[in-house]
């Protein structure tokens, strides 16, 4: 459907912060901090095992997803695909791996 002038809205646009970090040398953890209940519900619906598995090329069974409505946070943890500090590790603290999640386009409500 043509939608002139529409800039896609991403999870990062809606969130207070989307971040990633090592959780020890063998795990990575991502968090989406949403500002309120309404945006939390959007993040909660968007962040699924299938989405994370596709964005990060990790097996669905390795994922742990924590949904924390009190804090308006969705948190995802999975084993680091590349061990910290190895030759092919380009993000020692896993501090930039939130970007694929943050860049995920939020579906617009159907008109």
């Amino acid at each position, binding site marked *: 459907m043509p939608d002139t002038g529409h800039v896609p809205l991403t999870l990062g646009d809606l969130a207070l912060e989307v971040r990633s*970090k090592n959780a020890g*040398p063998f795990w990575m*953890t991502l968090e989406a901090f949403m500002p309120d209940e309404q945006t939390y519900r959007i993040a909660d619906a968007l962040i699924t095992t299938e989405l994370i598995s596709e964005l990060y090329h990790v097996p669905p069974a390795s994922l742990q997803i924590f949904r924390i409505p009190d*804090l308006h*946070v969705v*948190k995802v943890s999975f*084993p680091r695909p590349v061990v910290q*500090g190895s*030759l092919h590790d380009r993000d*020692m603290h896993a501090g930039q791996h939130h970007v694929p999640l943050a860049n995920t386009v939020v579906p617009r409500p159907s008109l």
Partner: protein
Amino acid sequence: MPDQSGPPDSVGILVPTGMLGGGFSPETITRGISLGADVIAVDGGSTDSGPYYLGADVAKTAEAAVRRDLRLLLAAASSARIPLIVGSCGTSGTDSGVNWVADIVNAICAEDGLDLTVAKIFSEQHADQLIAQLERGRIHALPPSEPLDAATLRRCAHIVAMMGHEPIEKALRAGADVVLAGRATDTAVSAAFALMRGMPPGPTWHAAKIVECGGQATTNPRSGGVFARIDQHGFTIEPLDPDTACTPTSVAAHMLYETVNPYTMREPGGTIQVAGARYAAVDERIVRVEGSRFEPAGQYTVKLEGAALTGYETVSFTGIRDPQILRSIDVWAEFFEKTLTEQVESVLELAPGSWGADLRLYGYNAILGELERSPATPAEVGVMLLVSADDQETATAISKLANPLLLHLPLPTMSYLPSFAFATSPAHIDRGAAYEFVLNHVVDVDSPTEMFRLEMKGASDA
């Protein structure tokens, strides 16, 4: 030495900074002491900066910065007559890391006329002793790692075990004013004194987790230290910077930070359970937490960390600005890898697989690699070539062979040689030995202190 008569109503913990050597203002300490600190606890290390520090047995922090922080902490602890506990000394908590911090402490005590009893707790482990434990079936893998084998233990340049609070408590009970611990859990460093003074484990361990990164649990994570007061029913926490606040959200959210699971956290002796914790504002900058629990484990386990040599590395760097190359940068990168592999085989007679290389296109897709979806054509790219080989000479030789390619390699379809922008001369830097973490395993122990060695020395014993 602290007064040990009867359990107090509460214990105040001053955590000046997330890491010793990270710096803090003198007012941070003054304020923490005025709030009635019973102990100063500070973390001296982490695995977060990578396996090099454990593998090479060097500290990440600068000696001058550690000395500066310790001078303030030792003076405050001495004048308030409260203990100072430093965990994971020297970044990785190796024996030489403990001795490095101890030498700095002893020098300060001598210079400043402080008469303090200093305890060192060593946590480095020998592969042979661990292999004996492995053969007895007492070492288990943590997810996502595979079961351990003896060869992996033998590959480690250094292995440390993470102590719980018990070895630290043992040193305090023996009269230590200053405890310099090898590798310890971040939480044990802050929990030890409160547990020794009879505070309940649920609130104590939860408070210890919240304070371990200094200002992370506050509204201004760069502000530095925090103060926690633990009692029989819970704990309160506040920042040491009067212009910063702890809010119920900032404190609750800290359980997310660098953890796999935000509700439970395993310590050597059991599991911290915070799913039932309640966070309430006492005022605009102090938070009260109640309802945290600690479930003792059936088996006390001590976690191992080990770093093994992976080889020797050389890094090279060049810059590409030519739009013609940049429009086909994937093709160029593939051509580079193919050409280098062929040349290394023909000139140096090294088979593919006997060495490794990682070509990173900064400005294009270096950080996320294949996770980067259809990156745009960049305006310029920084090309980093990281080479790994069994010895430095070979890594350097491969990098020297790569040098003309990093300077001149065209696209396969081009009929002339471009020249790229080396950032430095020479374009390569030898990095020396490189390491990787290979242990993610725990040892079943009969006693929480059996893997750790305590040495005490008073100023008067010198």
